[in-house]
């Protein structure tokens, strides 16, 4: 794994930075080969008690729902004393209703509170609301009023679920004495009396009425040094061992193990936690997982700096090189897929980077070493059919761990495209409409890395889910959330609002190989922050429109829709008979073959804002291009279908060369606005 060298170097940098700042680590970070569970309190001697909220994610994008749907986010106090927070719901409880976690209460040090939001649309269309998490005594700027963006979409009102249980009193456990932010190594936030169940809310009839607020009264030592690293690190002996002594206890190891535990394990999977004595920082890269004691004693300085997210953990490179008989102009990345919660992993190469679809879909033959089993839904195995322009993918849904670039490991459901007959045969309504993608060689990829502008793959609308038993599969219109394939980007704690695609320019005639970069997140780090000259093209957010997720385009006076799609290997549009099709016998059939390179342009316009601009491009003779042996072209184009008249533009990969393109997820917010949008 080539990545390891780089990643470990990054870790060194991260830790050095943290120690230098003397600041709390705001994000949970994990690396592809090791996990660092945040909150590295590095310099305890000079640190006063503090509180800081880590909220993940800050966008709740529900996508298009057909039923009342709940999602949640987590608020973690990464500090060393209790954080007194108020969860402020949206101004109205329709359509977004905070069903758990609302109110004012403390979160003890190292504790996490889950806030649950229910989306019950009352009509068609997309709606957004905001809610806030306010911390009265935190020490990091921004925590005093952190805004959470809520967004959802629907094709109409959805039925209200019948309450299944009599709503009991929703107690808001309030410790009668505030958690004492003691600087001693004692457990933090110990409610001295049991929580008093004060009936503060009248049950509204919603089925989940319990704000299960936190303080459980149990003093906790949250970070147990004995936690074994969940993944097997790949030892990389070249990395300096500097990161090992993550915490040097300045007092005997009897203290509360507030620090990091899992931070270690970076080099060797020992993680055996030898906590009884002060960890010996062995420079031989034996991380000892421990940091058993981070005595938070006697601190003096106030932490002021907000930690800067490491700038490079969100970059996934991809190649356009037509290796392995791949078609030209297709960008492929490598990702790691693991059995959930284990170090049993495999690397999948040739994952097609596709901004035209959401979610991970991987041929089962590429995952066979993992021995995955389909997700279980009430005794049935979950299957899915997803429909693409040229065919469908059929297979089981399995929840796996996924590691991409230096991002934290995410646990997400993926579609395992069944090319090895390991699952039930495809139901007829999956095969009747189009042919199945049956193998990597036939499809031209090992899997799809779908990072398009919707948060999930829209069950019952764009896709069909099934409960399968043996070889029999029955439609299910509302699969459990846990089984719905999501855009993996939405699972990241920080970089969850979209992606940035960057490809260098290619010369006339093309290049043999080009390396591009996929950045996760928009404006979440230095490397994915848009420049000032970026034009933001808002996209159609009505899922019933043919141009859903598209912009407006005009070609030769004819207006139609348009989409940006790295998964398309050309610029596809009908040219009003301006361009000559390649002959049928040509290797470039389906593309344009003008006798000489022809300049053309299309005018793009945002939907819902005034942004517009002209895109100039060339159309070269595709047969000449493809015969050149090169793999990356900015001027291959073809008709979208057989019709002569212009009916829309598919900006495939040629558009992306020489550009930095921002793809904002529907309902997610960045400095460029709220998705769906494409900006460049």
């Amino acid at each position, binding site marked *: 794994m080539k990545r390891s060298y780089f990643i470990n170097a990054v870790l060194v940098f991260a830790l050095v930075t943290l120690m230098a700042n003397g600041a709390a680590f705001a994000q949970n970070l994990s690396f592809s080969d090791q996990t660092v569970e945040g909150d590295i309190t590095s310099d305890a001697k000079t640190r006063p008690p503090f509180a800081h909220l880590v909220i993940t994610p800050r966008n709740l994008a529900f996508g298009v729902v057909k039923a009342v749907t709940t999602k949640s986010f987590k608020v973690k106090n990464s500090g060393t004393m209790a954080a007194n927070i108020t969860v402020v719901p949206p101004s109205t409880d329709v359509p977004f209703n905070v069903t758990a976690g609302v109110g004012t209460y403390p979160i003890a040090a190292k504790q996490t509170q889950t806030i649950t939001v229910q989306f019950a649309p009352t009509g068609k269309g997309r709606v957004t609301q905001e809610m806030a998490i306010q911390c009265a005594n935190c020490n990091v700027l921004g925590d005093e009023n952190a805004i959470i963006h809520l967004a959802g979409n629907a094709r109409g009102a959805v039925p209200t679920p019948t309450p299944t249980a009599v709503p009991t009193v929703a107690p808001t456990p309030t410790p009668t004495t505030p958690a004492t932010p003691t600087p001693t190594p004692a457990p933090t936030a110990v409610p001295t009396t049991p929580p008093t169940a004060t009936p503060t809310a009248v049950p509204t009839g919603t089925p989940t009425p319990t704000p299960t607020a936190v303080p459980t009264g149990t003093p906790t030592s949250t970070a147990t040094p004995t936690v074994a690293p969940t993944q097997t690190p790949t030892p990389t002996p070249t990395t300096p061992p500097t990161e090992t002594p993550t915490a040097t206890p300045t007092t005997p190891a009897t203290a509360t193990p507030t620090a990091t535990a899992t931070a270690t394990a970076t080099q060797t999977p020992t993680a055996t936690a030898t906590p009884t004595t002060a960890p010996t920082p062995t420079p031989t890269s034996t991380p000892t997982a421990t940091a058993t004691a981070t005595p938070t004693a006697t601190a003096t300085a106030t932490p002021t700096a907000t930690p800067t997210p490491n700038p490079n953990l969100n970059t996934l490179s991809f190649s356009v090189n037509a290796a392995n008989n791949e*078609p030209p102009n297709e960008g492929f990345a490598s990702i790691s897929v693991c059995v959930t919660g284990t170090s049993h992993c495999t690397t999948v190469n040739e994952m097609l980077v596709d901004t*035209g*679809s959401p979610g991970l879909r991987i041929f089962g033959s590429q995952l066979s070493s993992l021995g995955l089993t389909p997700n279980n839904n009430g005794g049935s195995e979950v299957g899915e059919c997803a429909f693409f*322009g*040229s065919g469908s993918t059929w297979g089981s849904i399995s929840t796996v761990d996924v590691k991409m670039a230096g991002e934290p490991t995410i646990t997400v459901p993926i579609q395992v495209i069944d090319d090895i007959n390991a699952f039930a045969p495809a139901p007829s309504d999956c095969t*009747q*409409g189009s042919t199945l993608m049956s193998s990597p060689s036939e499809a031209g990829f090992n899997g799809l890395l779908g990072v398009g502008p919707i948060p999930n793959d829209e069950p019952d*609308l764009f896709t069909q889910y099934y409960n399968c038993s043996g070889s029999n599969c029955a439609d299910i219109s509302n699969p459990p959330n846990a089984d719905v394939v999501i855009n993996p980007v939405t699972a990241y704690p920080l970089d969850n609002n979209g992606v940035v695609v960057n490809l260098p320019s290619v010369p006339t005639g093309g290049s043999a190989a080009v390396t591009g970069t996929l950045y996760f997140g928009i404006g979440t780090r230095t490397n994915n922050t848009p420049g000032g000259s970026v034009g933001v093209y808002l996209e159609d957010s009505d899922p019933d429109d043919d141009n859903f997720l598209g912009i407006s385009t005009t070609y030769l006076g004819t207006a139609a829709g348009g989409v940006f799609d790295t998964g398309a290997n050309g610029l596809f549009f009908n040219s009003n008979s301006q361009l000559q099709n390649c002959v049928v016998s040509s290797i470039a059939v389906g593309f344009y073959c003008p006798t000489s390179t022809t300049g053309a342009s299309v005018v793009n316009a945002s939907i819902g804002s005034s942004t517009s601009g002209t895109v100039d491009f060339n159309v070269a003779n595709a047969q000449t291009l493809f015969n050149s042996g090169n793999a990356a072209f900015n001027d291959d184009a073809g008709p979208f*279908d057989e019709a*002569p008249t212009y009916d829309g533009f598919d900006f495939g990969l040629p558009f992306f060369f020489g550009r930095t393109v921002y793809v904002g997820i529907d309902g997610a917010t960045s400095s460029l606005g709220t998705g769906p949008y494409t900006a460049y």
Partner: protein
Amino acid sequence: MKIVSFVWRKGTPAALLAGCLLMGSVLPARAGLGANAASVETDAAAMQATMVQPDSSASATEATAASAVSGLTASSAQSAPYTVQSFVTPSGTTVREYIATSGTVFGVAWHGHRPPNLTALLGSYYGEYASASAAVVHKDLHRSMIVTPNSVVVTTGRFGHVTGHAYVPGLVPSGLDAKAVVK
């Protein structure tokens, strides 16, 4: 190196096709391309679809079924050599069938979130389409054109929105450009 997705397949014997057509005439449930106008309703029923009422704003040459109750007395428009009848499937896909004045369905087109039941729409032509399509290597994610000796089937689009059309050149009214009409 296989570069593109559009693959043209040949080789289905006409005799086999004729046999299929013959079977189609025996089994009224078999509809789609090559069948008669009444088969449109059969197709719609097979997909549990809803016939689309005539749209006054629609092009005269694209009149749709007069009413779901009275069946498919589609108004023929002026001298246009064909009529169009359309229906919408439960998943929201719009299907249009193109019927020559002779009463034969010569083309079908669709657009929506997911493809319609091509087994029904292509009727007796489905078999040669399916075998040719299955033989395609390195299918493009977005476009597929399958040309057999008797039919042309084009499917395009992306995740969430697919379009397509199919026609039988031998059944297209003379003088009509199927590429421009069937869409």
